[in-house]
């Protein structure tokens, strides 16, 4: 049995406990003050060597595979300390004590011995430690019953969390009235005791309810102790939120996006938006869907949008160009490799359909299916993700009407498509009819593209989609 007594010279030692966060500030403040008195009177924690318990099957040694805690961490009883492995069995070792980890006796992948110290835990002297014995399994229910003090042979029942709360507030459990099962002392009992002592305003216990203002026609028998039901005046009590900020480094794909988007914003963007009446296209797609299905292809609206864009780019090739870094040269790209923004687990990925200028609508649909299934499986290849010259983003499938898309360098234009809405519109006769309306928001590089070019391209694209038959004239 090795128990070391440690004398600490410095003043206040703050024992972290996850239970402390749950209290409101007034209780916390109070326990601080209490602590000032306490540490001078009570001796500091003792270091206990927690030994590796019996694994069973006559096993004497195991390999330490993972530590869940490090030196300086505070642990509660039953928290996981480490994972050890022996002969195909993985064992989770849990702490027997509440306290602070002071020493890990093994590094990762070292062999640990049953019966030998695994970690040193510093616990409070006032708790008292029973002589070291191997921790074998404890029946699941009994961990809730711990004897704290025996006053006149009367055992006080309280969970470790409650005992800590009492200890930190210098409360003798024997003085608290327990309202739990078997006169068990609950957290509420400690808080109530504190409230009586200090007159502090404590948050109502979870069991109490805010009674809504109801007509007094019916008396609902609730907690028997409540008599005259008063509507409680909302007390401005401090709202306790125990969440913590979480900081993580920006890595991998996200880091690359930071670079790309920062470069993108150096491009002077201008926006141009319009409204497209897709009523005829919706009908056309309905007619063609089964035909495509027979050929094993799912037909959405995108193939039409993509093909129409390519037809437009034939007339306005500057939108399918690239400006070099020094802005000295413009390269007109021969291929229309139209990118389609895809939302995957990783984030925004933009695979592109190659050479749309020589593809039929069906071929584009088929290629989109391939890219979509690869995208959702996380298996898009380099070739699919590079070489794009123009991009369409169908954000409308998620929602929204207007957008301000960001151009993906080295491209010079991008279009964002809103959702298709059924809206009332006027026809040539002045009658109101049901129209399928979609909004498009274009962004273009103002260094080489002017508003008029963008507007004309958009009008051409719009005309192809509003009157799909007109695409037939220009299809190659």
């Amino acid at each position, binding site marked *: 049995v090795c128990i070391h007594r440690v004398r600490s010279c410095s003043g206040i030692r703050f024992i972290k406990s996850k239970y402390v966060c749950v209290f409101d500030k007034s209780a916390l403040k109070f326990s601080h003050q209490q602590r000032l008195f306490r540490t001078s009177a009570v001796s500091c924690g003792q270091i206990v060597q927690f030994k590796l318990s019996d694994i069973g*099957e006559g096993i004497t040694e195991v390999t330490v595979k993972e530590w869940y805690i490090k030196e300086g961490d505070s642990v509660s009883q039953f928290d996981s300390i480490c994972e050890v492995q022996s002969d195909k069995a993985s064992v989770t070792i849990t702490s027997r004590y509440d306290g602070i980890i002071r020493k890990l006796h093994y590094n990762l992948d070292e062999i640990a011995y049953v019966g030998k110290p695994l970690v040193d835990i510093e616990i409070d002297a006032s708790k008292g430690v029973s002589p070291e014995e191997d921790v074998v399994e404890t029946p699941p229910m009994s961990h809730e019953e711990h004897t704290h003090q025996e006053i006149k042979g009367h055992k006080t029942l309280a969970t470790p969390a409650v005992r800590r709360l009492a200890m930190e507030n210098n409360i003798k459990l024997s003085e608290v009235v327990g309202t739990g099962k078997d006169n068990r002392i609950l957290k509420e009992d400690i808080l109530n005791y504190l409230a009586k002592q200090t007159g502090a305003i404590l948050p109502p216990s979870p069991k109490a309810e805010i009674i809504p203002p109801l007509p007094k026609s019916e008396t609902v028998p609730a907690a028997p102790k409540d008599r005259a039901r008063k509507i409680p005046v909302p007390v401005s009590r401090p709202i306790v939120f125990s969440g913590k900020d979480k900081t993580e480094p920006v890595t991998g794909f996200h880091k690359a996006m930071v670079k790309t988007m920062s470069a993108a914003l150096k491009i002077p963007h201008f926006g141009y938006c319009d409204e497209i009446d897709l009523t005829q296209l919706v009908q056309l797609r309905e007619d063609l869907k089964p035909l495509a299905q027979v050929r094993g292809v799912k037909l959405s609206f995108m193939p039409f949008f993509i093909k129409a864009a390519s037809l437009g780019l034939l007339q306005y090739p500057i939108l399918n160009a690239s400006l070099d870094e020094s802005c000295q040269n413009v390269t007109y790209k021969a291929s229309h490799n139209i990118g389609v923004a895809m939302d995957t687990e990783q984030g925004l990925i933009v695979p592109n359909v190659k050479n749309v200028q020589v593809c039929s609508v069906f071929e584009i649909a088929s290629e989109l299916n391939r890219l979509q299934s690869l995208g959702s499986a996380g298996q898009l290849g380099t070739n699919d993700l590079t070489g794009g010259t123009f991009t369409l983003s169908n954000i409308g499938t998620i929602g929204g009407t207007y957008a301000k898309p960001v151009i993906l360098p080295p491209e010079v234009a991008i279009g964002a498509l809103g959702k298709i809405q059924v809206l009332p519109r006027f026809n040539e006769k002045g009658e109101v009819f049901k129209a399928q309306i979609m909004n498009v928001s274009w962004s273009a590089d103002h260094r080489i593209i002017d508003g008029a070019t963008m507007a004309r391209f958009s009008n051409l694209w719009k005309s192809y989609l509003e009157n799909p038959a007109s695409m037939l004239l220009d299809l190659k």
Partner: protein
Amino acid sequence: MVLQSSLKNCLQLSCVLRTPKAGFRSTTSGSLIIQSTSNDVYQNLAVEDWIHDHMNLENRRVLFLWRNSPAVVIGRHQNPWQECNLRLLRQKNIKLARRRSGGGTVYHDLGNINLTFFTSRKKYERMENLKLVVKALKALRPQLDVHVTDRYDILLDRHYKISGTAAKLGRTSAYHHCTLLCNADKFVLSSALKSPYKGLKSNATPSVPASVKNLFEEDPSLTCEMLLDAIAEEYATQHQTDQHITLINPADETVLPGINNKTKELQTWEWVYGKTPKFSISTCFNMVYKDSVLDVKVDMDVKHGRIEVCNIDLPEQWLPPALSSELVKSLTGSKFCPNETTALATTLLRVCPQDEELQSRWNVLCENMTMLM
């Protein structure tokens, strides 16, 4: 603590209420035989976790029967790159799961049955369980030459492994699970469990490869259902309980509250790949580019599944130094994952000089890098 006991009561109560077939009477003691209605490896592993965490096993035992659609299951402390052909798994849509018990890597498909024996920590006894299985097999087909080795394997004809074992011990409960090959696809099994990755150095638990055989090959009249029934019968006899199999749906939150969160956790990248013990890769490969073959040497340290340190040795000036250092910088801290690497490499390309030759070299290099993952 209060929550735990109510959950334990919950399963007992819901078992009584929701069992499709009537007849389950005892509530806190005795043995229970349950079978999963799902073939999803993550859901089934989640059921094991749930029973381990929430069920009061002090006075009872549970036998859990389950089968999975094609999946490779690695042990808690193993390295998937060392254990299996991840490229093949992705291609063939074979799932990869990491279980919480120790031991080595196994291949599951519907021709393999899984048995989990849940007991209190005190009653944890693997030999007994395996002897039970052998007894059941012999009762079914007396001519079968099957026996248990001291490594907790079951061998057929003294030579072929038909079952592997692993176990998990917690504070108050424990489980021992094992596989049993009835009619699994041996061809896929051997190609899936053959790692193509070279130059790996790690302290992860290595698997011990063994020749395997299906019971079906020994006796074509055997099916998985017959084996499951025989084992359930033997278990019921030995533990004096009803030979009544309760069906469990691993997606049912009312019977298993919190199960869907457990299932999700088992599928996260952080669990499957991120829990890999630290390892290093030191390898070289031949990179074919146009009509030349170049030697590339790569050294990487991977911790928690992420590249901690990365070094790529390329032929001098093949890529401008600024570009190769950009690649190395971006890879550092990134997931050791081909998808992540492809995504980051292609995204970075947008802000690289728009030189076709340069870009195609970059692409070839990145593609080769992803082959290591």
